[in-house]
């Protein structure tokens, strides 16, 4: 039996090209000082965002990103038929709490820092298959909550290694609508293909070098996509990775070449290397679910909307690290999911 919307082993095709109706992002003060700061829809003046805990601040960032996104699309919360989202914390609590106040039917996603493309990948299936429209796709993270869960207390005095990355405080939301859905605003872009990533583990155990843990997964997904579709990096204005950082991006170039799919450096872009200035002391770059989500909303989608870019491969990358199994000596599995986003002009 052939699967009609399938192309090769890992790639799927959205035949109706679900639209991206609107997007929004909210981020913290450190991110606002970065090169994209002026493009954010909402900036929290302090990392606690006026909440009682950093976890609540993360909830508020997610919730506000969703509300602003719906506002831009002139869409009432009650009309949205599904929300897909996740974050880095145990039981993806911030996303559940944000969904609690939005009252939209909710599916929790977890792909560590790959969550934004995972949400889009599945959300577009719902919209394309006629199962739900509009669909709200989100992801968020917070530096302080990730530090306490995965590393040390904030005020603990330690040194970061050069390969370590800085978790982005921020959240992004993207509203998808089925192709035939009436919309109050013109769409920003559309989704045409997706590629579900395999979990790849090359035995990296260093939790301070997430880029190294994720790069082989990114290479595997790219190879699978290009093999399945017969396309090459030249078919895209940019091949965008989530948060490989400087170390992981370099590893991806070298490893992809070894796997038989060399990538042209000038077409590559990494959200983790885009969100902060090199002078912001974030070492190898930004990371976290919020990293790719914020850059997607504030930088990538506007370029597709304006027509500057016509077609990009958006592939957020996740290091599926668990402190428990990591302490037990287990290595860090990586994953990368990709979606093809095209302009509608």
């Amino acid at each position, binding site marked *: 039996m052939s699967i009609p919307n399938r192309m090769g082993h890992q790639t799927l095709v959205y035949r109706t090209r679900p639209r991206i109706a609107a997007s929004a992002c909210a981020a913290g003060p450190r991110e606002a000082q970065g090169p994209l700061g002026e493009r954010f829809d909402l900036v929290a003046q302090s990392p606690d965002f006026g909440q009682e805990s950093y976890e609540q601040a993360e909830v508020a960032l997610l919730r506000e990103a969703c509300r602003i996104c719906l506002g831009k699309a002139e869409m009432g919360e009650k009309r949205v038929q599904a929300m897909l989202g996740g974050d880095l914390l145990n039981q993806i609590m911030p996303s559940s709490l944000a969904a609690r106040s939005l009252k939209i039917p909710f599916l929790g996603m977890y792909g560590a820092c790959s969550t934004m493309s995972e949400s889009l990948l599945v959300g577009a299936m719902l919209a394309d298959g006629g199962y739900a429209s509009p669909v709200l796709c989100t992801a968020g993270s917070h530096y302080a909550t990730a530090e306490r869960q995965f590393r040390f207390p904030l005020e*603990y*005095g330690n040194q970061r290694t*050069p390969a370590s990355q800085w978790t982005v405080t921020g959240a992004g939301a993207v509203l998808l609508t089925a192709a035939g859905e009436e919309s109050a605003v013109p769409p920003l872009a559309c989704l045409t293909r997706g590629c579900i990533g395999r979990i790849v583990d090359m035995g990296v155990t260093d939790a301070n070098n997430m880029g190294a843990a994720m790069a082989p997964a990114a290479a595997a997904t790219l190879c699978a996509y290009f093999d399945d579709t017969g396309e090459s990096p030249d078919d895209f204005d940019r091949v965008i990775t989530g948060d490989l950082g400087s170390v992981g991006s370099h590893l991806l170039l070298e490893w992809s070449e070894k796997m038989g799919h060399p990538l042209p450096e000038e077409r590559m872009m990494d959200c983790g290397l885009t969100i902060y200035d090199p002078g912001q002391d974030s070492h190898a770059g930004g990371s976290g679910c919020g990293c790719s989500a914020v850059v997607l909303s504030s930088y990538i989608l506007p370029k597709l909307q304006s027509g500057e870019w016509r077609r990009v491969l958006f592939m957020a990358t996740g290091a599926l690290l668990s402190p428990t199994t990591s302490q037990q000596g287990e290595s860090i599995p990586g994953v990368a999911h990709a979606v093809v986003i095209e302009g509608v002009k």
Partner: protein
Amino acid sequence: MQQSPSKKNRIAEYKELIARITPKSKVAQGCLRAFWVGGLICVFGQGLIDLARGLWGLPLAQAGTLASIVLVFLTALLTGVGVFDQVAKYAGAGTVVPITGFANAMVSPAMEFRPEGWVLGTGARLFTIAGPVLVYGISASVIVGLLYYFIHL
């Protein structure tokens, strides 16, 4: 997990690539910074001991305790106002090795887990970093004490 030889080779190859590409920590610079900041903290502690002995005529053991109390207090204060981690970021082992590191390792989780309450937050998580040092430090001192006792019997 059983791995085929080709997969093993690829993992080894990737490990080499990581080692080549990943930037290294600046060890010489780190040592130098740790030396001068850590040294300065120790000079300050020694100054306190000398002061306590000379000014108030305290015996050495008590003067040493006084110096520890002052250093622990100052570290706790600097941790509380968010300065200590900045100093530690520069100095590394220079602030970890003296008693300042221990004080910081106690105060930072106490602050961090305050939102979870006094008992299950601050109380339960107070020793998350310093705990292992206490457990193995005290265990080692007990063993050494026993050995010392029996050797001198």
